[in-house]
Structure formats: C-alpha cells, structure tokens
C-alpha cells in the first residue's frame, strides 16, 4: 500500500502541550516538513520565543536556542553571523514579535539578516491568559481590554507584514493562514519559498501565519476558525507582499 502521509522527521516524538484546536501545531508541522523537504534539518538552528510556543525547542527535531521575550531575531543574528552556512529560523508570536520585540525584528530585516521568521499572529497573548496584543482587533475583547479594544485609547492593530515589506532588507514577506486544507497547502508553499530565500543567500524572509487561540478567544475550535476567517482576514489580508525579483 502506498504511504500517503508520514510524520515528518522534522518533529520529535514528544506530545505537544498546545490546546485542542490550536493551530500552533499545524504550523509546527509545516515548518518541520519544509526543513526536511529542503534538506536543511541537519544544519538548522531554530530560535524559540517566549509565548505559547516557548517549548518549541522540544518539538523541532533540530538544534534549538530559547530566546528571551522578543529577542529571537537578535539571537538568530548572533548564530547566523557565526555560522553563515547553517540554516537559522525564528518562530515567534505576535506579542513577542510585534510588541516587545519590534526593534529586533525591524532591524534584523533592515540588516537583511539571512534568517527566516515564522510569525504566528493569533491577535492575543495566548500564554499569559488572553491579554490584549498589539494585533488584537478593534472591538475584540481581551482580559486587559475587557470592553473590547478601543481605537481612541490604544490605536489600531499593527500590520507587521505590511510594515516589514517596506524594508529593503526584507526579501520575502507573505501572510497566510491554516484554517482549511487549501490554506494549509498555500501556507506550506510560502514557508518553503521563504526558507529558500535564506538558503540562496538572498536576505531576510518572514511568513506571517494567522492562527487561532480558541482557549483565550473563548470559542470552540470550529468557531475560532470561522471567527478568524470573518474578522482577521479582512483586516490582515492574505497574500504575498514581497518576493525576490525574478522569482514567481
């Protein structure tokens, strides 16, 4: 019988701690498959963030370095400058990348650091229990925005892909999601293309993945997928913002 699905070597056999229905798990799988399929798993060094994916270092089957909250791009810079022939990626949440770590991500991109970033945007601080993130939608409730995010009080949610796409050093920027099999396939394609930008030495690449947090959104997994589609995608349009010239 032909094998139609096999677990990637890019993931360890450890059971993850993610909540049921959380899409962090799917994103892990896509990243791991991309590492394996591109043949870089053996020379990959991943940088884990602080956030729900803080334990990513237990799940990816490659060398891993656990960074402080938001500092993953700086840690990755240090690794890549020492080991330019290795493959270095960061995996970061929206609080990590778009709030406390904005300076680090903007300047890593700006330097054209040859690293790849997977940015998991779930519009909330998942790990700490559902506080408002810089990406929380206007009107969306969070424990620190109990009446919903008020634009007059704390502005609109930040669109990191659009922001980073304006930076010359960022060579690949795409926003995807994983709410349906079709979306999952597209997400994987984007992650592989992003990783190739690093492998070919072209510069910085990032894939923003719109992700669910059923637990802190207070929804069932299917409600969360629907909420993401109806509320997040209109504000965070999917698609490629940038790819190296001459590449389709």
């Amino acid at each position, binding site marked *: 019988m032909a094998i139609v699905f096999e677990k990637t070597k890019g993931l360890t056999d450890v059971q993850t701690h993610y909540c049921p229905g959380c899409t962090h798990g799917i994103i892990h799988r896509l990243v791991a498959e991309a590492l394996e399929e591109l043949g870089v*798993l053996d020379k990959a060094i991943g940088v884990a963030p602080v956030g729900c994916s803080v334990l990513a*270092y237990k799940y990816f089957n490659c*060398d891993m370095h656990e960074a402080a909250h938001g500092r993953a791009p700086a840690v990755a810079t*240090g690794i890549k400058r020492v080991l330019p022939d290795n493959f270095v990626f960061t995996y970061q949440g929206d609080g990590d990348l778009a709030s406390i770590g904005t300076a680090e991500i903007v*300047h890593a991109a700006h330097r054209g650091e040859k690293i790849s970033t997977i940015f998991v945007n779930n519009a909330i601080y998942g790990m700490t229990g559902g506080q408002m993130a810089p990406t929380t939608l206007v009107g969306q409730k969070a424990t620190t925005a109990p009446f919903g995010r008020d634009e007059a009080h704390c502005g609109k949610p930040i669109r990191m892909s659009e922001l980073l796409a304006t930076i010359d050093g960022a060579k690949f920027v795409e926003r995807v999601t994983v709410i349906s099999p079709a979306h999952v396939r597209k997400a994987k394609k984007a992650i592989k293309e992003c990783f190739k930008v690093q492998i070919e030495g072209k510069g910085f690449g990032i894939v923003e993945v719109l992700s669910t947090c059923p637990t802190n959104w207070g929804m069932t997994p299917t409600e969360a997928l629907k909420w993401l589609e109806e509320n997040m995608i209109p504000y965070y349009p999917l698609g490629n913002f940038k790819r190296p010239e001459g590449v389709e």
Partner: protein
Amino acid sequence: MAKVLMKGNEAVGAAAIEAGCRYFFGYPITPQSELPEYMARELPKVGGVFLQAESEIAAINMVYGAAGAGARVMTSSSSPGISLKQEGISYIAGAELPCLIVNMMRGGPGLGSIQPSQTDYFQATRGGGNGDYRVVVLAPSNVQELVDLIIEGFDIADQYRNPVMILGDGMIGQMMEPVEFKKPKQRELPPKDDWITNGTKGKRKPHIINSLYLAPEELEAHNIKLQEKYRKIRENEVKVESYNIEDADVVIAAYGTTARIVKTAISQLEREGYKVGLIRPITLWPYPYDEFKKINPQCKGILTVEMNTGQMLDDVKIAVEGRFPVYFHGRTGGMVPTPNEIIEKVKRIHGGEM
C-alpha cells in the same frame, strides 16, 4: 613581544583579538566607543565579525546566540547600556554560556555623566538581572592588567561556561600606557562540541540552549548545579593584591583606578611614618573575603575608598565581620578622590578621631 603604547579601550580590543575573540556586538556609548570603533576596523582583518546592534538589548542577545553557536564573543558598553544588557546576561548565565562583557563605568544614576565612576559595583556583583546567578567580575587598575584580565577572562568564561565582566571605569578606558600581550596561565578548557548549537549534521541528537525549567524540581536542580559551579569559582578564582596588611595600623580597601590614587596616598603616609596597608580586590566577584583575615589584629580601622557613595563598602563589612571599625571615603559624579583627602582620613582614623 615588545611593549606598545595603547589607550585602554583599544588595548581591550587588541587583547580580545589576541585571545581568539572573533565576534563583537555592541552599541556606541561614551566613554568606551573607541572599543567598538577599534573592533570595526580590526576584526574583519582577522576574519571576524563586528556588528553594530540596534540597542544594547539586541547586542547582548546577539552575544547569547553567538555563544550558543560556540564562538568566543564579547560586547562592551558603559553604565546605562549595561543596565539594558541585564536581561541578556541573566539568560546567558542561566543557559551557562561563556562570553565577555566590558563595562567602562560612568556616573549615574540615570543618564548621569560621562565621567569615570565606580557606581555599578552593586549591579555587577549582585546580579542586575533576575535570578540566582553570578557573573565573574574582574577589576583592572592599569592598562596592562586590563589586557591580562581580558585574555584570561575569555578562558575563565570557557572553563566555567559563565559570563565574565570586566569592570573598568572611564579613566582606564581613556588612559594610555605601555602594554604587552602575554599568554595567560594554562587552563584545561572543556570541549564545546557536546552542547553548542551548530546543526546536528544528522550525526547526533539536537542540542538545546535554554534557561527554562518549568518543573520546580528541575529548576531547583539546575540552581543547585549553578551554585556548585559558583562554589568552585569562589574556591579557585579569587585574585587580590595586598600590601603590608599584617603590620598596618590602618588598612585601605580600594579597587580599579581608585587603588592607584590610594597607593600614592600610602607612599606619602609611609614617608611620614604611618603604617598603612592596602587590599585591592582584582576579582570583585568572587570577593577576596579571606584576605581580610590576615589583617593585623591591632589595626585601628579599615578605610574603603571608592568613586561612589559606598558600594564595595558592604563587602568590606562582610569580610571584616565586625573585627575592625570600617570607614568610607568616596567621591562621585566624576569627582575623583585625591591623595590628600585619603591621607587626612587615614590620619584621623589613626588618631582615633573618627
């Protein structure tokens, strides 16, 4: 090798390169900018990398990454920048990685001034970042010693897998003195291949650099292991210069450039017939507490002299254990204690007037 005349900050760079350091991540701040400038010029010539980070926070986290990847790596800054590095230093200590951090101290608190000071003693020796961790703190008092401690500092960091800090002040960074580059004492340095993150190459299990231990038993075990390492450092790495303490009527404790001023005062006092000793800690952590046990039991008092309002003073009191009265003389903000001020204090202690 012949002696060369070098400015302190540049001598740090030359010594680091001599020690095999090839990676420097930093952010400009007076009074240490000659060091990143020197590294920007010199590191590419030896195949190394100098990178100006967007902030001291980023710089220390780049050090964290580079150290994890197995490199001899350093950063430098001055007081306000060192404050920003504390998060990273805590992570590096927690993850047990070697690196060298230079602090050419300036006046504080806040933006303070750009004048030399010793106001970061507490921050350097008591942590600064969160958690039960220790950083080896080396305090040179001249440019030659600065060079020697930089070279040995990298070895200490590698031997114990621990951050090492050079605590200088703006004065030592700026002064020019002749130096020579000597081999440090031979040490058995452990191999790095069994923990660095440089890719599995399909030949080994993944390595993980980490300071997170969610299970209380595991974190406690990790802390016990760290404390055991710190005990070994206390046992093996204390460095101190002392002078005439078995015979002195008054002993002065001072470190760094302040100790040089103290030596001038002591020479003058000796010419006038006073018996004055000196304890100059070279390692501020581990602190040379035991040295104070050798002090003449008839000694009339210990005078601590610092360019701050009394920080090492706490360690002197711990060391003395109430056996002698402890006095303090300090100037701050870039004001430097003068030999005359020190001479006057010693005479008053000697005469029982304090």
